[in-house]
Every structure is written in C-alpha cells, then in structure tokens.
C-alpha cells in the first residue's frame, strides 16, 4: 500500500491500448475524409471533436476507482433507463411531435435519438455501458454471496441477469432498434460466460438459441410464407432479409447497399485502389458502411489491418481482465469485449454479406458522436480496471 503510483492512476495507463486507439482514430479520420470528401460539412473535424469529448469522458470515468461503480451501478442503470423512457414519453407531450422540430424525431423509421438544435444523441448507446456495469455488479454481488454454488444458485443468477436485461431490451425494441438489441444480447452472453454459471446451463442456452435460429432458417427454406406472415410481420424487416440473401434481385432497397458495398470492397482487391481513388458511390458511406470505403481504397491489406487493430484491442482488454484481481473488473472487461466484438463482427459481417443489414456502426471508425462516446466510456472502464490493478500486486 506504499506504492507511490497509487495516487496517480493516470500514470498507470495501458499505453499499448491507447496506441491502438490512436491508430483506430487515424483510420477513422482517413476513411471518413475519403467517404465524404473534404468539402461537405467537415465531418472529419466533427469526428475529432467527438473524440475529444470521448477522451474527456475517459478522464471522468477514471477519476473514481472502478470499485465505486459497484455502488453507483444502480444509479447509472436507472439513469440509462430514464433516458430510454424519455424516447417513448417525450413524443407524447412534445408539441412538435412528428415534425422536423421534434425532440425525438423519426430517423430511418425509428425513434432512437434525442435532437435539440444541431446536436443529436442516441441514449441506447449509453445504455450498453450501463448494462455492462449493472450486470457485472449483479454477478459480483451474487458470487460474493454464494461461494458454493449449486445449480439452483446458478439459475438464481441467470434470473437476476434476465431481470436486469428485460427493461432496456424492451424499451429499445419499442423504438424499434434491432441492432442495439442484438448488442445487448452479445453483452449479456459474454457476461454469462464469465459469470461462472455452469457449462451445462450455458450449453443449454446456446442450444436453445441455435435451435431458434435453425428453426427460423428451416421455416424460411420450407415455408417462407409462414415466416413472412407470422414472424417478420413488417415488410421493412423482410426486405432486410431479402436484401441480404438475394442482393442482386433486390437491388433497389437494402440489396442496393449490399451490392454497392460488395462491389466497393471486392474491387479493392489485395492492395486497394489508393486513398481517395474509390469510384463506387453510395450514400451515407461515412456511417454504417465506412468499412466498404476502407476495403475499396486500401484493399485486403487495409481491411485486415483494421480487423487486427480490433483484435489487438480485444487482446489488451482480455489482458486487463486477466490481470485484474477484482472479479468485478474482469466482468466489466468481458462485457466491453462482448460489446465491441459483436459490433465489429456485425458491422463488418453485414458489409461483406455475411450477416443481414442492421444499423450498427463500426466502433471507433464510423462517423457519429453517440457511438464514439459509448465506445470511449467503455475503454475508460477498461483503462480504469487496468490502472487500479497494479496496486494490489504488492499485496
């Protein structure tokens, strides 16, 4: 406890991780610049401003010892839920509801954003972090309470996690925002894995989800009409699937984006066309389809470089999780891994036709303030865990 560095956790920052983050920021700026050009609305500058805000958030997150989050977790959770409730409730009293001036406007058929003046903010992004903290908290408390766990206690923990997860999932589904819902599931899944719940239960859950997905595929193969009429309902959802499975037949809707995206990435080949030399045009490339721009201009080299960056990032987070001598820290890290990995996999997967198109941005790279803020706060948590670890090494 005499460690001089104890008073200054900032000096124990994982600089490897920060360097990876720096490379990601560079990639982001280059890709956005290339996607929109330097003329339109100064996207790169705005993105940098958001990063600055993100670093501010990291600093705030690091002020408190991450232990404190154990106590704060329910306030953070409640705040996140409150923001999500606002999305549902504000349109009911907003006199401008349904117009351009609405505080909660419709964007791409969903109400997911607060907008006031020129600033837009997506509360579900923050909820991701809040969910990580609150579930990690629940696991920690549970494991401290039940040192010897029978299968009953495991189910009890599972029940707690489900209970915590239901409100945010329900509120986000109302928007509706399928992408964020899936990210929630990924966070829950990774936390379940590290929570120590018996393999039997985990395998059972895995089996159930596989059966569910397999069932949907089987229905699609043998009785597509049933799927259309009773499960998907919404034509918007259906079009997504068609756009994914048969992009060339549905080239006008969701298929259009996928066709263009594949064309851009594929034509980049091994080395890419070079910076600013991309010639496949598609709208709004700076957000969800930013990876296509990287693939087109920097080729396989560029795409594998970015994926490697993400892999190294995850590696650093795993490192922090393994080193942490407080299980709460490990759980936080596991949640962050689930969140980042899933978003990366889903986003890149969809632009290369591996997964259906859902509106999930590529963390750190896509243009957009809320996403960057959430990712940066998550990194802040990891840095926090990491920086408070060493003081125990002299125990």
């Amino acid at each position, binding site marked *: 406890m005499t460690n001089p560095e104890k008073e200054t956790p900032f000096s124990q920052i994982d600089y490897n991780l920060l360097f990876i983050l720096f490379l990601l920021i560079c990639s982001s700026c280059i890709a956005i610049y290339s996607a929109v050009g330097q003329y339109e609305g100064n996207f790169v500058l705005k993105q940098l401003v958001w990063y600055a805000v993100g670093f501010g958030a990291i600093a705030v997150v690091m002020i408190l010892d991450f232990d404190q989050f154990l106590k704060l977790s329910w306030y953070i959770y409640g705040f996140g839920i409150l923001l999500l409730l606002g999305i549902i409730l504000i349109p009911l009293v907003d006199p401008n509801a349904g117009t351009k001036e609405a505080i909660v406007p419709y964007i791409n058929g969903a109400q997911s954003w607060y907008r006031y003046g020129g600033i837009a903010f997506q509360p579900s992004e923050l909820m991701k972090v809040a969910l990580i903290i609150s579930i990690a908290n629940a696991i920690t408390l549970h494991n401290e309470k039940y040192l010897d766990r029978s299968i009953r206690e495991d189910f009890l923990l599972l029940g707690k996690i489900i209970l915590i997860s239901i409100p945010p999932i329900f509120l986000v589904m109302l928007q509706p925002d399928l992408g964020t819902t899936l990210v929630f599931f990924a966070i829950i899944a990774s936390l379940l*894995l590290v929570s120590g719940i018996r393999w039997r239960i985990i395998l059972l859950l895995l089996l159930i989800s596989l059966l569910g997905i397999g069932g949907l595929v089987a229905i699609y193969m043998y009785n597509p009409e049933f799927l259309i009429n009773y499960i998907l309902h919404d034509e918007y959802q259906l079009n997504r699937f068609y756009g994914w499975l048969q992009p060339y037949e549905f080239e006008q809707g969701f298929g259009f984006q996928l066709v263009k995206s594949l064309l851009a990435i594929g*034509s*980049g080949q091994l080395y890419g066309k070079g910076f600013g030399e991309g010639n496949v045009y598609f709208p709004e490339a700076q957000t969800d389809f930013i990876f296509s721009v990287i693939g087109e201009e920097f080729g396989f080299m560029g795409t594998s470089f970015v*994926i490697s960056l993400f892999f190294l990032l995850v590696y650093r987070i795993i490192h922090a999780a393994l080193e942490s001598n407080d299980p709460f820290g490990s759980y936080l890290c596991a949640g962050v891994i689930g969140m980042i990995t899933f978003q990366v996999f889903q986003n890149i997967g969809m632009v290369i036709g591996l997964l259906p198109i859902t509106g999930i941005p590529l963390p750190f790279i896509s243009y957009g303030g809320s996403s960057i803020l959430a990712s940066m706060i998550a990194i802040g948590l990891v840095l926090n865990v990491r920086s408070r670890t060493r003081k125990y090494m002299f125990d």
Partner: protein
Amino acid sequence: MEAKKKKKSHVPFRLNILFLAVFLLFTTLILRLGVVQIVYGDSFKAEAERQENVTAKLDAPRGKMYDRYGRVVVDNEPVFSITFTRTDNMKPDEMYQIAKKLSGYIEKDTDELTKRDKKDFYLSYRADQRKIYEKLLTKKEMDELNDKEQYLLVIDRLEADELNLSKEDKEIAAIWREMIRGYSLTPQRVKVDVPQKEIAVVSEHLEEFDGKIDIKPDAQRTYPYEGTLKSIFGKVGQIPSELIDGYVLEGNDRNDLVGTSFLEEQYESVLRGTKTKINYVTDKSGNPIGKPIEDQGSRGQDIILTFDMELQKRVEKIVEREILDARQKYAANNKLSSSFVIMANPHTGEIYSMVGKVLEDGKFQDAPFGNVYNQYPMGSTVKGATVLTGYQTGVIEPGTVLYDTPLELPGTPIKKSYRNMGYVNDIEALQQSSNVYMFRIAMRIAGYDFENKRGFNNRQEAFETMRYYFNQFGLGVPTGIDLPYEDDGYNGGSQALGNLMDMGIGQFDTYTPMQMVQYISTIANGGYRMQPHLLKEIKKPGISADEQGDTAYEFQPNILNRIDMKPEWIERVQKGLYMVMNTTKGTAGSYFKNTKGYEAAGKTGTAQYDGDSYLLSLVGYAPYDNPEVAFVVVSPYAEEGGINNKIGRAILDAYFDIKKEGHKKEIIKQPDKKPSDNNQDPY
C-alpha cells in the same frame, strides 16, 4: 482464501474461451474478406470499372401549326419556368413551408383554385388536423371508415368560408396545388412564363430551397391569331394522371407537356419532338468522364391545317355582326345569342372555317367546338335527304306531284306546311320547303294508308329505313373528323308515325353542324360522303426553327361511302336546291339575288327548338355548277329576320371576295432546292 481461489479459478479460463470466440469470429471475417477481395476481386474490379451511365434529356420544341396558306397559327415561345422537385416521403409541412416561402418571391394567379383545392390545402398543413376530424366526424365514422373515406367526408363537410384563407394564403394554396401534382424526383412546373423580375428574385434565394426549387428554360405555346380557333387548336398541359402510364411507356417523362385537347391531343404523336439524349459516363462523384454520347433528337413535326385564317376571321366578324344586328332589329330575338358556321371543301372534306360565337354578358366568346359538340333539330335543311330517300325507296320518282294541304292524323296536331301549296312536285317541294310533301314520303315509306288511316304496322322497320338512308349522308353517324371527340347527334328511337314524318322535315333526330356540312357536301359533290378533316399536311422539321422541311404526309381525300341514289336523282335534288336560292319563290331567293361571280344552291331550315323557340339553319354550296365550298349556318333561338340567310350570303361573298383578291400567302421558307430542280445558274 480457499473460496476466493476457487472463485477466481473459473474466470481466466472463461476469459480465454471468450478470447477464443473473438478470435474465431475475427478469423471468419478475414476469411470472408479474402474470398471477396482476393478470390472474386478481379470480377468486382471489372464491374466497378464499368462506371455509371447517366442519361440527360433535353426537351425538343413542339411542332408548330400553320393554316393552309402557310400562316403560323400556333407557335412556340421560349420562357422560364419555376419548378419544384419533390423527394420521397416529403412531409406536408415541408411542402407548405416551401410554398409559403416561394409565395413571397413570385406572384401566382389564384383564379384556377377550386373550392376542393382550398380545402385540401387547408387540411394539409394544419397541425390540429386531428381536431378538425373529431369535430366533423362522428365517433362511429372515425371507427369504421378507412382513412380515405374519412378524408372525403371531412372535405365534404368542411365549409369553404370556414377556411378563412387570406389573399396570401390563397396564393400559397395556388403554388401548393401545383407542387402536389408532381411526382417524386421529377421537376414539376409551379409557374410557367415567369417574368424576368421574379426570376431574378428567385435565383437570389435558390439556396434556401435546398435544390427543391429550380428555374428551368421552358417553352410555351403562343397564338399569333390570339383567340381565333384557339380552342380547336387545343391545349398543351401536364399529362392527365389517368394516362400517365401509357405516356411513360411511350418514352415520355412524367413532367412532359402533352396535347390534352382537340388538335394538340389528336396529333400529339406528330407534334411531339424527340428529346435529345446525352449519355454521360460519370465517376463516383457524378462528374462526367470523357465526351458524352449524344443521341440527337429533333423538334416535333409541323402540321398544316385546312383552315384559311383570313376567311375564318371574316366569317367570325360576319357572325358577330349578324347576331348583334338581329338582336337589335327584332325584340323577339332577345334569346338569340349564338350561331355556328362551317365552310368546307365539298370534294375533299377540308374545313376552311369553323366558327362558333356565343354572346355572354355583352361579349362574344369563341366556341368553334360547338360545331362538333352541339346537336340541334336542323329543320327543313334535311329535306334533300328526305326526297332522295323517297326516290331510293321507290315511293316517289322524279316529277311525282303530291298535294300539299294540312293533314289530320289521329292523336296528332294537324301537320301542315307554312302555307298550303296545293299540288307541288319534288323540285317545287324543295324550292318552297313543303312539309306535307315530305310527310307524304314518310307515310309511304311507313306503308301508311293516309286516306283510310291504316297501316304503319312495322314502325321499327320504317324508322330503320329512313335512318339507313340518312346515315349515308352522315346524318346520325360520326363524321370521322380528326378530333379526339365528336358528337353524332341524337337518335330519337322508333316511335309514333308523327315522329317519322317529323324526321323527314328535320324535327325529330338531331344533328351536329359538322354532320350537316357533310350531308350538304355529299349532295354537292354528286353523292360521295367525304371525311371532314382539319389536317392538310405534315411537314418534317426544317433545319432552323422557322423553316419547314419536306412533306412527310399529305392528307388524301377520304370517301367514307357513296350514297345509293342514282346520279340523275342527285342532280334533280341539286336543281331543287338551286331554285331555293335563285328563284323568287325559293325560300332564300331574296337573300341570294345578284350574287357576284357565283350562283349558290342550298336549303333553308326553321325548326321548333326548346319549346316555343325557333332555330334557323341553312346549308348550301357554291358555285352551283361546280361547287368549291359547302357551308352550314345554325342559329338557335332566332325568331325573326332570316339571320341564317344573311350569314349564308355574307360568308359566300367573303369566300369569293378573298378568292378574287388572291390569298395573301405567307412565304414559307423552304429548304434550298437541289440545283437540278430549278433552272437557275448552278450555284
């Protein structure tokens, strides 16, 4: 410590499992990227290099219209239009804001705004729309009706004066009305022929509209002869929404202007130009690369009409003058407010002049379309057809003498001529317009024994026989004129014997003036029913805008049928018609005395019309022995003063005057002839 150790033991292992999962997922991504970028990279690259093709279209000017002597009657004028381009899912409020802003910069005529437009407009932007619905609909209606039905009910119940639209609001509504007629991503004209001053103001503020409002060069039809025949030339306008699919299939754009009525509609395919298409290859940002490939379009073909605008103008003046004169001289003519006149070539069916004048509030309105849209009882003018039908059916023959005296029939008012003529033959019957002569022909065709008051057993056959022959003259059938629509008269069906007799004097079935001119032409030209037409020639577009090219098509006279009657019978009727106009006993004799340079033939008509009123009509042709021009005059509600004959005389005089004066031909620029075509020095 033991417990802690146990607890800790699972975390690193599970984290490693998590890391393994991450590794597997990322590996999948890398593998898939390898497939897309390396395995299929070549084909994607080839595809991407194909680049994008963009086609721009430039409007081509519409063909012009000329009269038969090469005078321009419908021309094009370059103007500027303000257009609005709607995007997908544009909210009503946004459209309202644009209309409001634009109304501050331009003036917009609000005359065409209908009540319905105002209501639609009112509902479109109101934030409290829901409240209006709740106020105007019952709860049951709100629950049971679908959105569209509810909307229509609300529109129906909304009181126009409740809207309280100010002058500014109305202007916004007029702009909005044009805006909503547009299709997504297609520029829609909000105002055509925008004055220079407004163009300047709007250009200054274009940026405020975010590309949704634009100024585009456009063309507008102009009419050198102003109102003359304008309605027959027709209108050019936005494609009617019910026809849009057909036009788009033919290669039109949704915002194209097409002919929507009369000749513009009839000859749309001729007048329409072919757009110049410019194919660009563009890069990612939409900038053209290299030279565009041009598919040169051409302006529309010009059409030459059969009208003689000089004659048309003079006939219009005559008709106006005579209507005013007749009203002034005879108080009984106070309802006389309109007259219709057609002059045509009896051999070819070419229409020289087509006049319809209607006096409204002391001003004459042009209604030349009345000649094909309106149908009237034409009175004795049809008697030529009755006599020829008599010959053909064998009930009379040339020279048959019948006794003209009032006829009493059971259940019918006494049927008589305007005076008792005693014994008259066929020619005298036409000359003096004997009704009884025609009645007797009709009774004989019907097989009716007048002396014994019996017979007429097969009324349907009798009516059919009469109509069969009348139809051969064009009476009661479409004339075939080259307009999108014509009326073919009213068929009264098979009724009483009295009706059949009335048909013989033009008092039962009704006909249009166009049918009458076809009928008299058929008698004038020796029995050929000619298709009347307004198109004379189609000219290919010349090199410059003022130049006509070669003739692409020339209308050939079209014989629709030859009447069954023998030529000598037709000549006999022609003689009767000659006597109408050239003998003192003839019903029009006093009006056609001392004609200079021609002798006319024709037939007058006085029909009972609209209850107790009368209609005066006249058909005829001149010169008698070699007809050049046939005509019809119809004056509804003419009680006194022989306006039909006065107009008839005056228009024939005008025709022959112009002929004597020579036509002031406007020089049509022809493309230079080949040297071999003329005898000038070969350079």
